[in-house]
């Protein structure tokens, strides 16, 4: 058994998998990654399944390894024993290696470790911070925490780097569709003005600062919500529901961030600016399918290729991918 020892957990590091399904009716948040694109790419690179548990890092991070492990970091900068690695790398580590993750773009990085041992609680390995269970003891990682790793069996495993452009998630454009209470909005054009992420933002929700929205009515009969829902409380400043959001809410929901752009928010830190762009539901649906199939294309190439250098061109405005194996 290998182990990873956390030296510095940064602002907030938690274990997250694809999310906790089937318990929303009991008030359980779904949790899971704030940036599902980086999360899935990190897992695929490390030879994991797309929704396997990994470490979601906010800001910088440092850990030391005992034993052998195969890990990847997306999208932050990985520094192994003081040497900066190429971005989007998966690489072998051995006893005594120190890995630093430097958040030089965005806000959250995903450290995927092949064979990371996390106990399942209520059908998921995600940390449910609001209720304090799941993941690593139901809490954020602290300095000195140790997580077991099953050493990879495949001796053929090679270091590899994905040449990957996911610049869109570092931009400030966030596409939204009209929400159930859109018609209560008296100044709809205001929603497309610039908003700043407030310091009072976390995995539960992002509070926005900027122009106030004027609604005919702010309160509704509480109803179920989904991540990306934009609620407007009586002060007129929107709140975006994020991964650990409460499952029901009683403020008007004027719009919904599309799934494809939730990672844009996940990579934003307090004081970053965003701008909403309204799109049709039909476009939101198409983008959902398109982004999912991009990730599948990356997965397919990484799983099936024995080439040293190969390229996945999945086109479109989103990102192109080239994969080369090194070392």
């Amino acid at each position, binding site marked *: 058994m290998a182990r990873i020892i956390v030296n510095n957990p940064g602002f907030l590091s938690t274990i997250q998998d694809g999310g906790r399904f089937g*318990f929303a009716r*009991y*008030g359980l948040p779904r949790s899971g990654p704030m940036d599902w694109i980086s999360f899935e790419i990190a897992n695929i690179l490390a030879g994991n399944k797309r929704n396997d548990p990994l470490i979601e890092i906010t800001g910088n991070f440092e850990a030391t390894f005992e034993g052998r492990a195969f890990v990847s970091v997306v999208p932050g900068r990985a520094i192994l024993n003081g040497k900066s690695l190429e971005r989007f790398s998966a690489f072998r580590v051995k006893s005594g290696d120190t890995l630093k993750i430097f958040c030089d773009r965005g806000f959250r990085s995903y450290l995927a470790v092949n064979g990371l041992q996390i106990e399942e609680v209520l059908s998921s390995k995600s940390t449910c911070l609001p*209720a304090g269970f799941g993941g690593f003891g139901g809490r954020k990682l602290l300095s000195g925490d140790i997580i077991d790793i099953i050493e990879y069996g495949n001796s053929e495993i090679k270091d590899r780097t994905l040449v990957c452009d996911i610049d869109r998630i570092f931009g400030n454009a966030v596409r939204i569709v009209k929400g*159930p209470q859109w018609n209560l909005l008296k100044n709809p054009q205001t929603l497309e003005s610039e908003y700043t992420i407030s310091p009072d933002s976390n995995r539960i929700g992002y509070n926005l600062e900027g122009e106030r929205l004027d609604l005919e009515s702010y309160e509704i*009969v509480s109803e*179920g919500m*989904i991540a990306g829902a934009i609620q407007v409380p009586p002060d007129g400043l929107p709140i975006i529901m994020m991964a650990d959001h*409460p499952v*029901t809410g009683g403020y008007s929901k004027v719009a919904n961030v599309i799934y494809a752009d939730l990672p844009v928010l996940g990579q934003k830190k307090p004081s970053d600016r965003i701008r909403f762009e309204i799109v049709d539901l039909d476009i939101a649906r198409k983008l959902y399918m398109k982004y999912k199939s991009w990730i599948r294309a990356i997965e397919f190439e990484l799983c099936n290729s024995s080439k040293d250098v190969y390229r996945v061109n999945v086109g479109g405005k989103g990102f192109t991918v080239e994969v080369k194996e090194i070392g």
Partner: protein
Amino acid sequence: MVIEEMGERAIIVKFGDEISPDAHKMVIALDRFLAGLKTLFEWIPSYASVTIFYDPEVIGHEEIVRIIGQFRPEEIEEGEKETIEVPVMYGSKYGPDIEFVSDLNKMTVEEFIKFHSSFIYEVWMMGFMPGFAYLYGYTGSKVPRLERPRKYVMAGSVGIAGNQCGIYPFDSPGGWRIIGRTELKIFDIHKNPPSLFDLGKRVRFIPI
């Protein structure tokens, strides 16, 4: 019944815009209808609506709308409603707001305890935090929330806000008026389901 879209991954089936016994009945019926199907989606029942979450790669939104179209509330049997007995230590350090709520109802504390525990409550919605049930049944004076929520309410605390009652499953901040506490475990990750309460379950408070 109205169907509204919430993004590309959820729809809301609405039964009006008010908290009412009629809307609650419809929600219970739709919840039972969906539970009887082998569905490829998850849903949250609430006061007057059911929000359905889906993965567009697994099931299209047209298909869900078609399934909802087959819902015939009159064909759904009401079924047995389980009653959960909740032992409560009313007042003193367990219920710091009991005098306030008793005064509001123009009752002595003893009268109020008898009054509050005389009702059979029903879960009309879950939410706010894991395992938190919104209980209806109290017919006394509407209780205003605290002007400033307490930073710390202990798990098991029984609170009132408006005409709703609820029990805090975890230590947490809270703005409801606290009248007592139970030692029952409201939320237990080692059980499946983890929540003591669920939509439609009934509750009796037993003073101890």
